[in-house]
């Protein structure tokens, strides 16, 4: 017994490579411990600490990025985490979402007169989960990240104690999320049974080495299928999307922004990494499944969005259809065997980064508008006449909505162009056409919001006040949208080595 313990050697840890995680953890603990032991801080300070923590994590990630550029991708902590451009870019997107959402939340909670440190601490723990997920090279580690993220999100969804909708959203999300986690874990177990390992890289090796031996794939395929179902819930792919509109609508709007950006990015990137790293040899099996899920998600997401009357529900469905778009890129990757996964992966990375900025910006505007309306409502009516009362804000939302619709010279077009290009270059014309048609249908939704803002007069005009932090967050989101829209090279330059995923 003692011998065994003395023989146990922990993995060597390159502490600097996991420093973004440590910084986020430190920030979360600081807010929780110091925040709960001291009297109420002055207005805005909790949010500021959270934003600074996220910024520090971004800066460290940029250093990591440069390390990878010079010395190549590698595995960390005994193969549990991967350090490559794909992971770091996604981490930056998640931390950027935390940064922007913290700013908006600060104003939001000040308006609700209930500023408290827990929310920000939960953002940071959720971000830890997200960063672990996007880097996870092990299904168990991935599950840990997923749970850290999900548990934080359940609490965040229910964080507005004054509103019953928020409680309902939290409970709904918790129950369905629990189901999803169970599916996922069962899938992991079966995959382990089929391959004898949970390391993504080793799963791929195991599957390839048995390739000459006739073997029964049933166990493996059921496992992969169950994992896909679990991911499907988290990413809200159709037909696992039913919770999304209710939860998005019920949660406090900044939290919705966080779920739709950081939460979705983390789950999508993890999904992509698992399939591309662990199961490229079974791409013929999961490719068609992704095709169907992608098409369904696109169609249902954009068509159902059309009949909504609440802006948050509209945006919930639009975020569903965005996930469908990202899957178009994954489907494209399934046509190529490892290690060359091609444009699909790059397109996905570009899409999630731009999407995160877009969706945070959009929900930030919604937050501001909803808070100015009398009862915090987010119906289309609340947006009427903003074009007259606050043209700058209306213009900002218009830019963001046009970008979501994929109009050229905005980042949304760059993102859509990337995935469609990836699909077309491997001959997936059908999915590319479906995606583009759905983009048109979805455009109708964004037009409706724009019509409300610019072309309808307010029933009872209220002037929308935009607090300072929210102004900064919205300005950053709009700037990213326009700058990358006009000069996509700035982002595309970064993604040139993106397809080299860490493998040893």
């Amino acid at each position: 017994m003692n011998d065994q313990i003395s023989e146990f050697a922990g993995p060597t840890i390159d502490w600097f490579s996991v420093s973004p995680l440590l910084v986020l953890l430190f920030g979360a603990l600081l807010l929780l411990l110091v925040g709960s032991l001291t009297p109420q801080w002055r207005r805005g300070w909790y949010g500021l600490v959270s934003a600074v923590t996220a910024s520090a994590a971004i800066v460290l990630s940029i250093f990591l990025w440069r390390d990878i550029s010079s010395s190549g991708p590698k595995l960390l902590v005994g193969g549990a985490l991967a350090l490559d451009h794909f992971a770091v870019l996604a981490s930056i997107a998640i931390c950027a979402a935390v940064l922007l959402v913290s700013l908006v939340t600060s104003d939001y909670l000040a308006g609700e007169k209930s500023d408290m440190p827990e929310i920000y601490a939960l953002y940071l723990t959720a971000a830890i989960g997200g960063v672990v997920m996007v880097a996870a090279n092990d299904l168990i580690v991935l599950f840990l990240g997923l749970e850290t993220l999900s548990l934080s999100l359940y609490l965040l969804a229910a964080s507005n104690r004054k509103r019953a909708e928020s409680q309902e959203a939290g409970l709904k999300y918790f129950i369905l999320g629990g189901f999803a986690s169970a599916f996922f874990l069962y899938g992991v177990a079966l995959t382990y049974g089929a391959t004898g390992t949970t390391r993504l890289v080793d799963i791929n090796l195991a599957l390839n080495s048995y390739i000459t031996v006739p073997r029964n794939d049933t166990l493996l395929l059921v496992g992969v299928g169950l994992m896909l179902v679990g991911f499907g819930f988290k990413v809200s792919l159709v037909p696992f999307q039913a919770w999304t509109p209710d939860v998005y609508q019920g949660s406090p709007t900044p939290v919705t922004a966080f779920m739709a950006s950081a939460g979705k990015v983390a789950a999508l990137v993890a999904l992509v990494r698992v399939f591309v790293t662990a199961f490229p040899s079974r791409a013929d099996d999961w490719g068609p499944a992704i095709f169907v899920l992608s098409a369904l998600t696109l169609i249902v997401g954009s068509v159902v969005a059309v009949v909504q009357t609440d802006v948050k529900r509209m945006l919930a469905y639009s975020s569903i259809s965005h996930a469908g778009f990202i899957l178009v890129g994954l489907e494209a990757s399934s046509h190529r065997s490892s290690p060359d996964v091609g444009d699909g992966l790059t397109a996905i990375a570009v899409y999630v980064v731009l999407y995160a900025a877009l969706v945070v910006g959009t929900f930030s505007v919604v937050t501001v508008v909803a808070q100015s309306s009398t009862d915090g409502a987010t119906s289309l009516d609340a947006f009427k006449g903003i074009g007259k009362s606050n043209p700058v804000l209306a213009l900002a939302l218009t830019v963001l909505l046009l970008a979501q619709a994929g109009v050229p010279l905005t980042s949304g077009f760059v993102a859509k162009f990337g995935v469609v290009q990836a699909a077309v270059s491997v001959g997936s014309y059908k999915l590319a056409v479906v995606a583009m048609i759905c983009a048109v249908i979805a455009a109708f939704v964004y037009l409706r919001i724009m019509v409300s803002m610019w072309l309808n007069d307010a029933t009872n005009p209220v002037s929308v006040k935009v607090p300072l932090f929210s102004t900064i967050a919205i300005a950053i989101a709009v700037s990213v949208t326009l700058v990358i829209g006009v000069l996509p090279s700035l982002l595309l330059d970064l993604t040139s080595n993106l397809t080299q995923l860490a493998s040893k």
Partner: protein
Amino acid sequence: MIAANLEVLSFPILTLLVVMPVIGSVVVALLGSSRPEWIKLAALISSVSTAALSLWLLAAFKSGEAGFQFVSQHLWISQWGISWHLGVDGISLFLIVLTGILFPLVIVGIDPHHNETSYFAWMLLLQAGVMGSFLSLDLFLFFVMFEIVLVPMYFLIGGWGYDQRVYAATKFFLYTMAGSAFMLVGIIATVALAQRDLGVVTFDLVKIAEGAKFSTNAARWLFLSFAIAFAVKVPLFPFHTWLPDAHTQAPTGGSVILAGVLLKMGTYGFLRFGVYLFPQAAMWARPAIFTLAVIGIIYGAIAATMQHDLKRLVAYSSVAHLGFIVLGTFALSSQAVTGAVMQMVNHGVSTGALFLLVGMIYERRHTREISELRGIQHVAPIFAGVFTVVMLSSVGLPGLNGFVGEFLILIGSFGPARWWTVVATVGVILAALYLLWAYQRVFHGEPDEANSTFKEITVREGLLMSVFVAIIVVSGIYPKPILDRIEPSVAALIEHVEGQTK
């Protein structure tokens, strides 16, 4: 002499044509709150400078040369092989000049009545997009421009239009966007397939058209994907249903621009991209397109005859006229295509002018119902005279510009598309019928009480219309300088098509 030439080459006139309106738009938007009295002036300065640039381009354009002139190429998105690549040839030259001239006229001639700042800002952005579409020699850049045009036009119709404006604007946006969705996939597929022949990823129109060999089947699909986008834009029957709504609901300025230049992006696109990139597929699709074009001619004419609303009548007449242009474009004989290019400009001038006149009638009477109007000739003879000239140009009366284009189209199409041309000729007669009948009902007879106070044309309106009338008469009587500039480029295109389809 050589130095002078170099200077002309290095001066980025085409880039300026696109950038100038953008600058104007930004200036207008920034002036908005602080100096409202300068807005119109700023818009005017910007658009007049653009017009001056386009006229200078016309003067500096070397007639008799087929290739692209004043080419300007800068790398834009190197990772995707996309560049800011502009050029002008005989096919696009007059559309650019038309775009250059039409906007200042609309800006000076028509008041938006409310929200001047955003109206003029959108107007100028629209001009930049249209200019860019006609100048782009890069597939990506063209798509960007083609699509970006929707946004300002959407806001112009939605913000300053009539009762059903939101419906019409949304329909316009979604129809056109749906068309271009196919084109985007087509563009990307074109580039991906061309990569096999060219060895590099490039969106350069000329390189792809001259270097890539598409398989017959692939070329057909690609052509169709482009054709849908252009057919919606033109609009070709049965994709035309957005047009009457958009035209009727748009403010006068919007209608003039829509008819004048926006629809030409479709016919121009057919020629520049559809036919140039996929000549064989274009030949293959000809019978179907001829048929749709001729249906459009006859259907547009009949529908126009039935209209009670003067503006809707003009809108349907556009469907018919554009049918002629498409017929000429796909006849792919030198005469027909030259005629089609010329007719694109003619239609822009005469239909643009018709929309202006209808707008003036509406300003005076607050109705466009033909049955409400009567005997205007008695109270406003000069107005009636101007209307007559413009209308006859639209009908295609010899001596006016409409005749030249229509005649060339019919004569050039008779060989390649005999029976379609015969049917199309009926459309010429129908055009005379519906326009003259409308004229008779509106202008002849004794004016009743409401119409007896119809105001004669004002000085500002008169000056505005005189530009249109001058273009109509001069290019009708002496079209040679125009044809001289169009023909070489058309001949080169026909040669390219014949070389590829042998």
